[in-house]
């Protein structure tokens, strides 16, 4: 009886929570404070720079190799590798990395004939 109870408790800890302990992405997930630096240029308005801080999180997505980096102001999906390398999808053309299990940096850029726009995101786990 005692053995069964211990096994049950172990199962609860291993499978009872949302975060999958067998998934390599788990160590990077959580709530983050992001610092976002947006920089853009076009011939009409010239250079535009803004930096702000926003709360957000990093979470699983259904694709087993990707994470969703999101906040009220942006939402990005990127492939994450075991060393923390981040590779953006075609629509955000981004790259970056988890520098540690608590720090992230990501850059995505958009370029068109009449200008360009770049976002530099850094974040620290709360």
């Amino acid at each position, binding site marked *: 009886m005692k053995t069964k109870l211990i096994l049950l408790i172990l199962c609860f800890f291993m499978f009872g929570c949302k975060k999958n302990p*067998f998934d390599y992405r788990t*160590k990077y997930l959580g709530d983050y404070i992001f610092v976002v630096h947006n920089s853009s240029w076009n011939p009409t308005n010239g250079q535009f720079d803004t930096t702000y801080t926003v709360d957000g999180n990093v979470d699983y997505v259904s694709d087993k*190799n990707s994470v969703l980096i999101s906040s009220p102001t942006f939402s990005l999906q990127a492939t994450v590798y075991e060393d923390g*390398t981040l*590779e953006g999808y075609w629509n955000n053309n981004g790259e970056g*990395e988890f520098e540690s*299990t608590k720090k992230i940096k990501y850059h995505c850029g958009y370029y068109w004939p009449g200008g360009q726009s770049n976002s530099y995101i850094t974040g620290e786990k709360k």
Partner: protein
Amino acid sequence: MSIILATYVSYGQDTIRAKAHHSKYQFSFLVGGFYKSFFGNRYIKPTTFELGDSFEQHQYERSIQTPTGGFKFGALVDIRMAKHWYFTTGMLFCYRKDIFEYNSDTVKKYNNISYTRNIHNVLTYNYAYTNLEIPLMILLKLKRISLYVGANIPILSYKVANYSYIIRQSYYPISYGTSEKTVKNLEVPFKIYPTWLLSYSFTLPKHTLEPFIGMDFGARKSFFIQGGLIFTMNAKQCTKTI
């Protein structure tokens, strides 16, 4: 002097064995070291990349695995099932390493080296695992010889992964540099190490010493040659009789 010692040891062996034969549980401590080696070539041959394959399936291809050392220690309990037959379990701390090394020219040839460090331009994967492992083994005891066959199952692992990268420093003239990164994490691994151990027991009045040799089997044709000591406590104090 040697006659006295032989008599003393012989008396101890008989006493312990008589007690041990009637006990259901036998507790012991294990301490040992191991050397990781490989069956055949240490080079991991590339396989054809097919649509839908994940990066992980081909991650270590074209690398060379490096032999490493490690150690283990912990407690074991032998549960008597039948005459000569026992089920052995317990808890072991194991330190294991996995190293995959690439030739820098190979990385440059097959990967698109960028200015930033990323997994596509890794030169060396150096993993160190400090594992909490549960051994699940069948034990056959024949007089002084014991044969353990089963598996060690890691349930928790403190993984330190060190990556070294080759990065582009300039395009014209083309030049490269290196970079490094370490990721530490506590994780639940999904691994099993099949194992066997062979020991020979020397019985003293209050303890039994069993030097052992054995082998754990790992992934990618690796195996761990191991040796050490199993130290069994006084049967009277540490066993529960049937």
